[in-house]
C-alpha cells in the first residue's frame, strides 16, 4: 500500500515539475515569437500549437496517474 502511495506521490511531483517546465518554456518561446517574428500571424499559430500539444501531453500524464 505504502509503495503505491509513494509511487503515486512521485508521479504527481514529476507531473507538477513537467507542467511548470512546459509553462516556463512556453512563456520564453512565446516571448521570442512575439518579439522577433516579422509575421504577426506566426506567433499566434506557434503559441496555439505549442499550447494545444503540451496540454494534450500533460492530460495524458494526468490520465495515467488518475488511472
Amino acid at each position, binding site marked *: 500500500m505504502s509503495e503505491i502511495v509513494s509511487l503515486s506521490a512521485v508521479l504527481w511531483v514529476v507531473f507538477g515539475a513537467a507542467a511548470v517546465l*512546459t509553462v516556463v518554456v512556453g512563456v520564453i518561446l512565446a516571448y521570442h515569437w512575439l518579439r522577433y*517574428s516579422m509575421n504577426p500571424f506566426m506567433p499566434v499559430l506557434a503559441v496555439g500549437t505549442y499550447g494545444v500539444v503540451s496540454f494534450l501531453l500533460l492530460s495524458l500524464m494526468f490520465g495515467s496517474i488518475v488511472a
Partner: protein
Amino acid sequence: MNGQIHLEPGEHIIVKVRKHWIILVRDTMGTVAVGLLPFILAAALVLTGHAALIPNTLLPVLSFASAVWLLTIWMALALIVTDYYLDIWIVTERRVYNIEQQGLFERQVATWSMDRIQEITVRTSNVVETLFGYGTIQVETAGPTDANAIAHGIPHPERIRAVILKQIGHIGELEETTKKQEGLIHMIGHEVKGYLTKDAAAFSNIAETDPVPPVIKHVAEDALVETRKGVSTVMNILDSADPHNGTVLLATTRFNVATTLRTAVDFLRRDAEKRGLLLTCDSADAYVNGDEVKLREIVFRNLIDNAIRYTQKGSIDVRGLITGGFIQIHVTDTGAGISSEDMTRLFTEGGAGTNAKSLNPESTGFGLFLAKQIVEAHRGRIWAESKGAGQGATFIVELPLTA
C-alpha cells in the same frame, strides 16, 4: 521597427530569406529519432511476444513515462523550430542583415551597408546542396573577415547575390546622379546669384541717386530689399550643398559667443522695433571654437529673424546659459508657437511650417535645415520646444565650450 530591425525612413525590405527547409528537417531528424526509439522498442516487444511479461500494474507508469518522454521531445522540437524560424537574412535597398538566433538567449544581428560590400561569394558544396538548391553565401567587405558574414543553408544563394549586387549598382547610380544634381544646383545657383547681384547694384544706385522721383525711389528700395532676399536665398541653397555631403568648410577660430549674440541681436533690433517687439539679449562670456560667421549668420541670426517674423506681439529673449561643458543659447519668443505636426519636420529640407505662408512668406524652408547642419558640424545640438500653436517657442542651440 520590424522584428527588432530598425529600418531607416524610406528603407524597405527587398528580400527576406530563411534557411532551406531541409536544414530544419536535418536538425529535427535526430530529435525525432531519439523520441521514437522507446516506442520502436515497445513495438518490438509486442511483436516478439515479450510484452506479456510486463505486469499490468506497470502499464499506467509506462504510459506516464511515455507522456513525459513525448513532452520532453516536444519541447526540444519547439526550441529547434524557434531557432530555425528566427534565423533570417534580410536585404534592403541600403543594407544586408544577418540575424542569428543561437539558443534561447543569444541573438546576433550583423549589418553591412551596401556601400561597404565588395563581393558576395556563393558556394554549393555537395550533392545534397546541389539537389535541394541551397548553399552558403558570404559577404566580403574591405575590413577584416567577419565570422557573422557567412550564412549556411540559404536557398538559391545565387539569386540573393544577384539582388544584392543589383542594389549596389543602384546605389552607385544614385550617388552619381546626386553628384550631377548638386553640380547643377551649384551652377544654376551661381548664375542666378550673379544676375541678382547685378540687379541689387542697379537698384542700390537708383535708390541712392538724388534727385529721384519719390515713387521711383520707393519702388527701387522695395526691389532692392526683395533682390537682397533673393541673393540670401540662393546663398542658403549653395551653402546647403556642402554640409549635405558632410564636407562643410569651417573657418574655425576661438570666439566669445556673448559678443556674437549681441552682434546678431543688434543687427535685427530695428526689425523687431518696427514690429513693436521687445528684443533682449543676455549671455555670460563663453568661448567656443568654431566658424563665427556661419554660426552668427546661418544659426543665430536665422533663429532670431524667425522669432521676429513669427511673433506678432510680445517679446523675444536671447539668452546664453553655461551648463557643464556647454553653452546653451535659448531664443524664446511669445509668437505663433509650433504644432506637434510642424515639430517633426522643423529641421528638415524645405520643412517650412504651416504658418510660414501667412507669417513668413519669404521662407524657403531651408533656414533651420542649414542651421542644424552648421550646429552639428560644430559637434553641437539644436532643438525646439513649444507647448503648441499660439504658445510661443524656444529654440535651443548647444555648443561645446573651449578652454
